[in-house]
């Protein structure tokens, strides 16, 4: 097609690429935006002048609005134009607009154009927020300049500088609605650079408000130089990211998804691989935090600033708290601006008052806090008065979450606990850890506070009641705040963190006993969850070992509460009812040990069981089965369950397979499968479950002396469709066992299809651990790897091929990371202890983990 503007579509792409190659996109992102906008200016002007020649409408003016108006045009941003005409002019406009737009569209540009008279413009700007804000950024491009001047000055005078408060209210509303949309935890991992919290749109809101209220374009003129510098850097960083997103994807893409995180990190100068991505995302979080603070501050200044009449009223209403602080209108404020300079310790007192009087501080006081941060030095951190105040805040626990957040937001927390700055914005490149470490730590404290307040009374009554038995809750809150403090350093974060926490505790002047307690909690904060999720809790030895490490009942309670808070603060999906029940089981069993000095499980010993069984089962049947039942089997089930199992086994002769299930809480079922043992049975069961989207949580596999296989599974289905899926599973398993269909054929049919690119997500490094200590009779194999379709089937098949008998399995899924634990023995019922066999076993499993789809085809 004939290029109408003397330039073709590919010329435009070339031009953009050439600009991109200068490196400005990321080194001087602002400059790049301006260049891009200049280039567009010349194209748009050409289109306008060409159209004007043909249409000949004398008094008309072309204005750039929105981001383009600001001269901040990202590579694929929309180009918004406004055609302004005097009120009388109406004819001939639509053909003119067409003549401007078509050639630009044909160049592949995203241009939109509205045409309005000055009068319409001003009227609509009063009622429509979007039109109003786009006009703020209006920039003259071509045509009658007088029109532009006239419109702008009337807009400023009659619209923008009036009803500023109302303007702020509507902008805040827009901001809150927008943030709500991006609240989904997926967006914390893959944020939207423009619209998300602390994104470029938020920054813009702050800028518009400054324009309206302070009548200046220089947003930095009303901030402290330090703050404006940091803000400028943060915005530049987001722009650099956005430029890359647009250029690499070739479209207007603002979602910073994993795929682009991986590609962009090296371009922005971060190192290759996971470390670089984590550093980049840390910078992203810190930057968006700065922008959030900025827009909150500006909104506060305008919305929370009382009218002068009210000011006088409050002056008389004002109540003095002490010589330094007062409250008025439910807000806390500073009486003498020089207070913190004279006595920095008052900073902590301020937060204490905030808690006592349940009052927010006014924005001037907040600014005074930020200004006073340099006064927080060694002597402040070591001051007994300051630390006592801090501990009493923790002890009171009212509003502790919002209070810690405020301390953190103002930069106070990381000045007071300097170690905290090392985990600020620190993220993990995976699907499980939704929040950066600093936010996660504060959330953990909030979860504890909620628990203590009784918010979880209905769901978790045991945990709730435990919070009341704790003697020094402030130690627990402090441990929760510091539990991940070691994450900024290399090495085992629990152990390093414990040392750091002890130092902090010393500084705070805690007693030896308290220090030990915090050290224990931080260093062991993963012990309980790992034991509950990765070990067989029927095994007395495991409980004993765990109890020994915990030492006493009080610590057990603290650890249980901390574990809850830690997991709950990871993200909304991390704390499942399954984890809840496992942790509760571990807690109860261990507490029995502390109370009675014995690990009597809730199941009976073999002899007692047998005695009971004889009451339920006829002697002939019992004599046929009793001798074949393994010892371990007795410790896992109640006599009632065993009776049912024997009944099932007894009817196996007639029906080659029996499947029963019992559903709890709609999403979880305990499935019992009874059949004759055969090679690869377990992997066939797991394969059939996988086919029916049943998520396996735990499996107990028992093979009786007489060749009966009795396996129980805990499975879940988040879609509340268990009954149908289980029916299907039963049918599939029956057909597979009778040889009617082949499992591998079924599985290959289910393979994800064909031509559609899979979404890129963080990779999970594979790891296989073999443990021969925790159990006397079994080798415990722990497998960590990336979740994918049919992985459990692959691994159990691998273990079977390797000659292992699986006796117990527990499966956890954390995002796309699976942690599978198998209790295995070799074909002679022995542990696998020789180094070379262990190595071989590890290699077998690793190869199964990495041979992704191949094993299915």
């Amino acid at each position, binding site marked *: 097609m004939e290029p109408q503007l003397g330039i073709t579509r590919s010329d435009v792409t070339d031009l953009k690429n050439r600009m991109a190659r200068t490196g400005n996109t990321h080194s001087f992102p602002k400059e790049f935006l301006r260049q891009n906008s200049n280039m567009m200016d010349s194209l748009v002007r050409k289109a306008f002048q060409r159209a004007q020649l043909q249409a000949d409408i004398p008094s008309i003016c072309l204005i750039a609005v929105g981001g383009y108006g600001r001269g901040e045009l990202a590579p*694929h941003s929309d180009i918004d134009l406004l055609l302004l005409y005097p009120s009388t002019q109406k004819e001939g406009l639509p053909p003119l607009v067409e003549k401007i737009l078509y050639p630009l569209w*044909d160049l592949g540009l995203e241009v939109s154009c509205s045409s309005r008279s000055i009068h319409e413009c001003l009227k609509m700007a009063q009622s429509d927020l979007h039109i109003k804000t786009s006009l703020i950024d209006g920039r003259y491009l071509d045509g009658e300049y007088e029109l532009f001047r006239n419109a702008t000055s009337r807009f400023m005078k009659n619209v923008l500088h009036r009803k500023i408060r109302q303007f702020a209210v509507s902008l805040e509303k827009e901001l809150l609605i927008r943030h709500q949309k991006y609240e989904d935890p997926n967006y914390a991992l893959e944020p939207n650079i423009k619209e998300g919290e602390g994104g470029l749109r938020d920054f813009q809101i702050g800028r518009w408000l400054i324009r309206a209220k302070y009548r200046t374009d220089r947003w930095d003129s009303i901030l402290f130089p330090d703050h404006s510098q940091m803000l400028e850097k943060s915005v530049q960083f987001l722009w650099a990211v956005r430029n890359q997103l647009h250029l690499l994807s070739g*479209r207007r*893409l603002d979602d910073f998804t994993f795929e682009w995180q991986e590609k962009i990190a090296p371009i922005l100068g971060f190192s290759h691989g996971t470390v670089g991505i984590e550093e980049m995302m840390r910078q992203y979080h810190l930057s968006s935090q700065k922008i959030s603070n900025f827009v909150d501050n500006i909104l506060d200044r305008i919305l929370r600033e009382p009218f002068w009449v009210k000011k006088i009223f409050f002056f008389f209403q004002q109540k003095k708290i002490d010589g330094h602080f007062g409250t008025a209108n439910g807000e806390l404020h500073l009486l003498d601006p020089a207070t913190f300079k004279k006595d920095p310790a008052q900073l902590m007192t301020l937060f204490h008052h905030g808690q006592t009087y349940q009052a927010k501080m006014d924005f001037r006081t907040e600014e005074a806090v930020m200004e006073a941060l340099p006064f927080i030095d060694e002597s402040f951190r070591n001051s007994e008065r300051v630390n006592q105040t801090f501990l009493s805040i923790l002890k009171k626990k009212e509003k502790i979450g919002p209070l810690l957040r405020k301390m953190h937001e103002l930069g106070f927390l990381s000045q007071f606990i300097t170690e905290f700055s090392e985990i600020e914005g620190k993220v993990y490149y995976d699907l499980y850890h939704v929040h950066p470490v600093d936010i996660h730590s504060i959330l953990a404290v909030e979860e504890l506070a909620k628990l203590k307040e009784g918010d979880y009374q209905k769901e978790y009554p045991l945990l709730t009641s435990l919070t009341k038995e704790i003697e020094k809750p402030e130690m627990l809150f402090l441990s929760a705040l510091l539990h991940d403090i070691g994450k900024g350093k290399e090495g085992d974060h629990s152990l390093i963190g414990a040392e750091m926490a002890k130092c902090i505790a010393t500084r705070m002047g805690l007693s030896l006993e308290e220090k030990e307690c915090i050290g224990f909690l931080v260093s062991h904060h993963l012990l309980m969850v790992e034991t509950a999720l990765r070990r067989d809790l029927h095994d007395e030895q495991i409980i004993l070992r765990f109890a020994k490490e915990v030492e006493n009942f009080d610590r057990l309670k603290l650890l249980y509460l901390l574990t809850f808070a830690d997991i709950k603060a990871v993200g909304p999906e991390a704390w499942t009812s399954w984890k809840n029940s496992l942790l509760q089981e571990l807690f109860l069993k261990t507490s029995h040990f502390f109370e009675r000095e014995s690990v009597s499980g809730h199941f009976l010993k073999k002899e007692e069981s047998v005695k009971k069984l004889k009451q339920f089962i006829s002697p002939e049947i019992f004599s046929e089965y009793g001798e074949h039942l393994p010892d371990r089997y007795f410790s896992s089930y109640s006599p009632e369950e065993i009776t049912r199992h024997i009944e099932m086994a007894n009817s196996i002769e007639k029906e080659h397979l029996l499947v029963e299930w019992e559903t709890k809480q709609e999403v979880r079922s305990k499935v019992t499968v009874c059949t004759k043992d055969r090679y690869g049975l377990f992997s066939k069961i797991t394969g059939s479950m996988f086919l029916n989207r049943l998520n396996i949580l735990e499996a107990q596999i028992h093979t009786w002396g007489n060749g009966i296989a009795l396996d129980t599974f805990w499975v879940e289905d988040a879609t509340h469709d268990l009954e149908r899926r289980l029916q299907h599973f039963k049918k599939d398993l029956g057909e597979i066992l009778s040889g009617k269909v082949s499992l591998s054929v079924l599985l290959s049919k289910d393979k994800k299809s064909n031509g*559609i*690119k899979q*979404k890129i997500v963080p990779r999970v490094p594979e790891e296989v651990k073999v443990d021969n200590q925790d159990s006397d009779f079994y080798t415990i194999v722990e497998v960590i790897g990336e979740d994918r379709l049919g992985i459990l089937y692959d691994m159990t098949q691998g273990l079977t091929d390797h000659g292992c008998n699986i006796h117990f399995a527990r499966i956890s899924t954390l995002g796309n990371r699976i942690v599978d634990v198998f209790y295995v023995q070799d074909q002679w019922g022995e542990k696998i202890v020789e180094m070379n066999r262990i190595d071989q076993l590890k290699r077998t499993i690793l190869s199964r983990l990495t041979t992704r789809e191949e094993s299915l085809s």
Partner: protein
Amino acid sequence: MKKIEAVIKPFKLDEVKNALTKIGVQGMTVTEVKGFGRQKGHTEVYRGAEYKIDFLPKVKIELITTEEIVTQAIETIERAAKTGKIGDGKIFISPVEEVIRIRTGEHGRDAI
């Protein structure tokens, strides 16, 4: 190039449209349709008599995308159209051989 057809609940249309526009989808075709799936319609009682409502109103959106964007487009629709209840709808993906913009005669990705 792929064609994505999604049958969704009518009240989710705006949300899906906005979400797709945000990721750079430039156009789509929307049709009001009726149908049933596992939801199978339901019966309503009116003045004592039972009426079976077989076909439920839905909205079908159709869009053509390049290979690069198809995964994200599907994910976006899933996220925006999901209520978690029965009747949320379905997404169909099929290959497209060619696209031609009639006015200019452009082919392929330029014509999308």
